[in-house]
């Protein structure tokens, strides 16, 4: 009689954040080995980008990460600006910061719903999806699109803020800050949540650094590493904020770090709106976008996503199309070095909880 058996989770499974498969080997309900199987979402972004003009790629790259597309546009634009030697106007920097932070809020809310759902609390999912939709309405008014905005582009942003938009934004921020108290009472202060999540999938500081963790996973072990502080871009150098950290390194600590990050993002939006220049250009004048010839060279541009460091390595050969673009998604090491190790020894009922606590985004693996 066989002692162990195999079980597949995914590619379609409510406990998996996207189309991704996991091959588990179990004894009873204890996982003895876990192997990730990517490929269900491969759309060959890196190859397609080589065939397209720099401006055409803008329609393609937001699709690399579905819950938070703006990081892709920003990192891509930063890489192009770096190669072309373009400085973006002051007002555009603030607008980028606001867009990025609002996108972080939507991504955290989406994550919160999924994470609470994996623990059996579906109410939070309903609330968070509803609150995320208010932010998406703001995006739709600003950019004309709900999810894939294509708003940030090389040289700045596509157009100026609509009249009265910042007031709507600030009232949303105020609403979210009040709502956070409800979220705390329902979920983050809930004794059942602490009971279920404390001590699960614990990572030490040394392990997190060794395994290439970034973002909330690393912050939950006590390392305050954040691209917004360490290699500032957009308007982050002018804003005052702290990186939240925890010492425990388990699933609970990661959730609490994300909860504080959500609050930090809301504060950053308020600060950026207050400090933003009232008028001025939002785009550095550049040649006709269909005739952008980016000088020869290579660069690595990175931004902080809700999952960690998100970067674009871009090689240009001096023509109108990129020679090679390589995307660094935070989820690649999170899946293949961290999740595969953390799942071993845990219970099957915790598998989707662990995956969601690491916030793995499959499109970042199948670029």
């Amino acid at each position, binding site marked *: 009689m066989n002692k162990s058996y195999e079980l597949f989770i995914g590619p379609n499974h409510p406990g998996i954040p996207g189309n991704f498969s996991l091959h588990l080997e179990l004894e009873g309900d204890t996982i003895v080995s876990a192997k990730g199987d*990517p*490929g269900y979402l*491969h759309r*060959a972004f*890196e*190859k397609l980008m080589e*065939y397209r003009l720099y401006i055409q790629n803008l329609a393609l790259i937001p699709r690399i990460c579905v819950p938070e597309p703006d990081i892709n546009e920003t990192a891509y634009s930063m890489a192009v600006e*770096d190669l072309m030697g373009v400085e973006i106007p002051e007002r555009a920097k603030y607008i980028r910061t606001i867009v990025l932070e609002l996108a972080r809020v939507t991504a955290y809310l989406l994550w919160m719903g999924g994470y609470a759902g994996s623990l059996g609390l579906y109410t939070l999912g309903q609330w968070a999806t509803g609150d995320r939709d208010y932010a998406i309405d703001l995006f739709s008014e600003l950019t004309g699109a709900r999810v894939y905005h294509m708003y940030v582009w090389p040289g700045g942003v596509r157009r100026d803020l609509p009249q009265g938009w910042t007031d709507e934004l600030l009232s949303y921020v105020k609403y979210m800050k009040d709502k956070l108290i409800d979220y705390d009472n329902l979920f983050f202060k809930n004794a059942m949540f602490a009971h279920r999540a404390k001590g699960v999938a614990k990572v030490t500081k040394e392990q997190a*650094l*060794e*395994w*290439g963790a*970034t973002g909330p996973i690393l912050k939950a072990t006590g*390392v305050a*590493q954040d691209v917004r502080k*360490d*290699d500032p871009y957009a308007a982050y150098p002018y804003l005052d904020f702290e990186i939240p950290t925890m010492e425990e390194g388990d699933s609970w600590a990661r959730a609490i770090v994300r909860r504080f990050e959500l609050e930090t993002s809301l504060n950053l939006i308020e600060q950026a709106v207050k400090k933003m220049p009232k008028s001025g250009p939002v785009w550095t004048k550049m040649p006709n976008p269909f005739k952008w010839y980016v000088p020869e*060279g*290579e*660069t*690595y541009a*990175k931004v902080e996503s809700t999952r960690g*460091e998100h*970067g674009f*390595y871009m*090689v240009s050969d001096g023509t109108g199309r990129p*020679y*090679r673009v*390589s995307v*660094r998604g935070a989820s*690649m*090491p999170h*899946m*293949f*070095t961290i999740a595969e190790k953390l799942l071993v020894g845990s219970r099957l009922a915790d598998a989707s909880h662990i995956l969601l606590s690491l916030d793995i985004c499959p499109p970042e*693996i*199948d670029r």
Partner: protein
Amino acid sequence: MSVLDKIKGIEGVNVKVQRDNRIFVDVKEDKLISVLYVLKNIGFNQLSLLSAVDRINEEQFEVFYVLYSNREKVNCIVRTYIPRDNPKLVTAAIIYPPAHAYEREIAEMFGIKVEGNADAGKPFILENFKGDVPPLRKDFNSMKYVNAHFQPFRHHDEVELEAKDE
């Protein structure tokens, strides 16, 4: 002693500073692993990205390792060049564990053999891929592959014209 001086002190490297915190280091393939060891010891404790560029005109692959030092807040990009006709590389997964998955990816996408990585060369992201040329190489023709293995692609103008003829 700054981190840049320390990197310049390593034997057999060619250093180029692109901007404040982006240092490009070119190194020969046989020195690669020892240079990565030294860089890890001087504080570059994270591997952010590992991938390759197909330099078809120079007949070689450029393999790059984006390293990060969270103490110095500096990115160091190590580049090495391997011949295109017989691409071989030694694994860096012992020094940087995340390299394991990235090496599986470049083995599949560029056809680079990675010695010491047991999983490199096994199917990873691509499923049922039947082409002779690995897909991220510059001589891989996407359109040709699609037409050979799927229903041939036709431009919508052609389809409209045919409909009119009928």
